[in-house]
């Protein structure tokens, strides 16, 4: 019996505002503990919240980009629970009237056969709320300290419909969501600094049946962790059901080192949040003109850019999609292509060779020692047949190490491709003479034998021979 997983994601994203959601305290990351605070973000008696207009605008921006309906009225609610990182013992959030609801996000997922599927994932809501502080345990002998720098930073909580069916879809959903948020410039989406956090709701069911009992998974620190935790949870639940057990509704924590989810609290232990309308913030009408103004100011979003790349640069949809999903990668590509090199070549070289080097050295593409102009220079040498692709693969790491241009390296090391037909004919003769049995194989119809001979010729010329020309000359001589 196979089961169908049903997955929904809740993503919390810090909105990139200068000041907090309800007070003027700074939001800068990494400040000394409790430096970025005010009576309001400390929840001091008598303090009152005042909405940060910039945060509201960013939230609306997100809503529009996710195809949501932007609410007519803005209303906040109090969500109550006791925890030392929550200074007022309630979080100002939105309960029954989220600022955005009813949208969707398009994603593309490659299956195991490499076929790309398009999926539309519903967005239930994307609402505004304030972040909590942080407890500090490490290096403290006796007790716990609280840092309220994060308390009150604006968050948008984006809740998906239970439309996701696989761990890979969840991964692609997060990537697509992050791409949109980065294009909108509403958040840096840095998971390490906690500016993007994700919880996953997972259940399984027989296809077409009612939803099964779900578990909520927390403590997911990377997109890969989300993917792995969902895979684990699907397996765990499937085994339970197959053994005749029942899945219990509970909150579970992802334990990364163990690669397991572990029980945190049951449904019965869950908080009663006692939501009620925040009396300190009077509901107000969101002017349609404001929504239109924000809509008109939206930048080019990933879907549109993918389409433009596909059309203008003649890339495959998939290549364009992969480039565009990382805004910085797409920007690098466009800067490179501006130097009039082949977009196809640029796309290949950036996505394979350059990315491999960057990943190995753990460098972000914005900080790449090889600039887009430098990359274009290398590609131009390939295009002009000055060097072969093979040589170029040796040149790029040197550019990466030294920051020097491809042209300099090629000139200095004498790597210019040999296109001198006479010279290559001489080498070809030597190769043919030295490998009589291989030549015989070729003449007997073993086509692969030519490859060996070309390889020998390349070796003799230290890789500098123009491979196309070498191939031609050998074929001629052997026919």
């Amino acid at each position: 019996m196979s089961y169908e997983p049903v997955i929904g994601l809740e993503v919390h994203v810090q909105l990139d505002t200068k000041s907090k959601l309800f007070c003027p305290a700074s939001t800068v990351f990494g400040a000394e503990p409790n430096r970025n605070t005010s009576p309001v973000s400390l929840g001091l008696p008598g303090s009152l919240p005042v909405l940060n207009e910039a945060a509201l605008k960013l939230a609306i921006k997100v809503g529009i980009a996710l195809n949501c309906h932007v609410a007519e009225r803005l209303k906040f609610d109090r969500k109550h629970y006791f925890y030392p990182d929550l200074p007022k013992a309630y979080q100002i959030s939105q309960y029954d009237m989220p600022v955005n609801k009813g949208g969707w996000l398009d994603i593309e997922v490659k299956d195991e056969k490499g076929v790309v599927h398009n999926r539309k994932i519903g967005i239930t809501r994307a609402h505004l709320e304030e972040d909590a502080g942080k407890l500090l345990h490490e290096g403290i002998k006796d007790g716990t300290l609280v840092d309220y720098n994060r308390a009150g930073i604006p968050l948008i909580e984006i809740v998906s419909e239970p439309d996701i069916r696989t761990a890979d879809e969840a991964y692609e959903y997060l990537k697509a969501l992050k791409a949109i948020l980065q294009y909108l410039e509403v958040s840096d989406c840095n998971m390490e600094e906690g500016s993007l956090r994700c919880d996953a709701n997972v259940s399984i069911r027989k296809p077409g049946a009612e939803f099964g009992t779900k578990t909520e998974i927390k403590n997911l620190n990377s997109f890969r962790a989300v993917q792995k935790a969902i895979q684990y949870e699907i397996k765990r639940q499937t085994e339970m059901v197959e053994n005749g057990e029942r899945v219990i509704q509970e909150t579970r924590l992802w334990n990364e080192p163990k690669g397991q989810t572990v029980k945190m609290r049951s449904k019965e232990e869950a908080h009663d949040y006692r939501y009620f309308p925040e009396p300190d913030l009077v509901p107000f009408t969101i002017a349609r003109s404001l929504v239109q103004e924000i809509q008109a100011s939206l930048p080019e979003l990933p879907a549109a850019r993918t389409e433009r790349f596909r059309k203008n640069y003649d890339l495959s949809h998939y290549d364009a999609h992969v480039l565009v999903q990382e805004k910085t990668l797409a920007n690098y590509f466009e800067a490179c292509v501006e130097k009039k090199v082949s977009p196809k070549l640029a796309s290949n070289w950036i996505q394979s060779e350059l990315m491999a080097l960057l990943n190995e050295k753990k460098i972000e593409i914005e900080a790449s020692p090889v600039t887009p102009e430098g990359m274009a220079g290398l590609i131009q040498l390939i295009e002009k047949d000055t060097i072969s692709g093979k040589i170029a693969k040796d040149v790029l790491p040197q550019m990466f190490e030294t920051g020097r241009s491809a042209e300099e390296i090629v000139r200095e090391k004498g790597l210019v491709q040999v296109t001198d037909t006479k010279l290559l004919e001489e080498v070809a003769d030597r190769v043919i003479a030295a490998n009589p049995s291989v030549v015989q194989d070729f003449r007997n119809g073993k086509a692969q034998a030519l490859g060996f001979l070309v390889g020998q010729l390349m070796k003799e010329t230290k890789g500098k021979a123009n491979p196309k020309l070498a191939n031609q000359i050998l074929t001629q001589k052997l026919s």
Partner: protein
Amino acid sequence: MMTQAQHALTLKEAMQTAAKGGAENLLKALTERIATLNPKLNAFLRFSPEKIVQGTAGLLNGVPIAVKDNICIEGVETTCASKILKGFVAPYDATVIRKLKTAGASLIGQLNMDEFAFGSSSETSAFGVVRNPWNLDCVPGGSSGGSAAAVAADMAIAALGSDTGGSIRQPAAFCGVVGLKPTYGRVSRYGLIAFGSSFDQIGPITKTVEDAAILLNLIAGHDPADSTSAPQDLPDFTKTLSRDVKGLKIGLPEEFFVKGLDPEIAKQVQEAANTLKKLGAEIKTVRLPHTHSAVAVYYITAVAEASSNLGRFDGVEYGFRAPAQTIDDMYFETRDQGFGNEAKRRILLGTFVLSAGYYDAYYLKGQKVRTLVRQDFQKAFQEVDLILGPTAPTPAFKIGEHIEDPLTMYLSDIFTIPANLAGIPALSLPCGFTAAGLPIGLQLMGRPFDEATVLRAGHALEQEIGVYKQKPKLS
């Protein structure tokens, strides 16, 4: 003409004195007065002449103002008369305090109150009951009992109180002084330690209606730090005070003159109505049909907000913290030892009405009835300009009389709560005395943001009746 005792000056007189450099003498006279009387009345929680926030210049030129202990003053301990806030020193000024400082007020001390403003008798203070200057065996009313007692006993020239369900007006009535609850949104709540956020208003407690107008001028106005503060025009409330009341339509609500209202009070209020008529006002009967639901609705919605607002007193950041081994124990012990019984009762009640499964039946229903009460007033104000009634159903009761009987205590606010539910301005002023010599207060309610008319009618009535000049006999 004999010089009047400095401590007995009205705010207006004190301002004239201070303008001529008399603030220092004024302060000295008050200091002596407080030193003599506070041991009897317990109106001030904190008074230290050496720590006075000394004002200069401005309109007040250093005239001392006393403040209820739930309004934050930078650098000064503010406790809401609760053990749980013992030691909490506010690091910022409430907006009204900033305004008073700018106006040159000297802030001479903080006044006792019911713990977190939960009460109608000032008996729930963690720091001892306040006594009524007219009869030391009686309560001064509450929750701003310290403010009303201090002003009545000439220990303060004028004071600030706060009113959530009658906490300015009822003690003003019990102590024979003037108390004004402004329109919700007229005065900034920033820095007022919240009880019921959608009800709370800071307002003046003074010796005369004119003084109330002067003090309201100083503290009112839109505040960007309080989203519920109204961006409304701010008239000079003293300007229209002495205009006559000819042609004003004044309504007497049937529902306020019912069984349970002390006959002596009913008689005095009726006489006040006659006085207004004599002055040219038109007196009519009006209906406020949902008055009977007001107390119930208030004790559902206001305590819901209170339970939420008091969550922050958990021992983590400030105030009292009970020693404990685990975080849960710290919460339980801190809140168990830190809060008094009435605070606990209201937190429990408020938590209950907001819990899953009960919210619709209580809080949501309460909000709907609140709308009905508001509509009662809207309808009434289509017919009349002001509504006149008693402030409280009884005069000041004996200390200890109702403290074990919360329901009777809650009914003490039956006539003041409707104005808080509707958010409208309401003024209490003394209009006579019972046979036993206790003050009787009447209440004038007006349209939203029409404090000017309320004060004008109040002033006319006060001058005509003249009882405001009477003082309690204290030695």
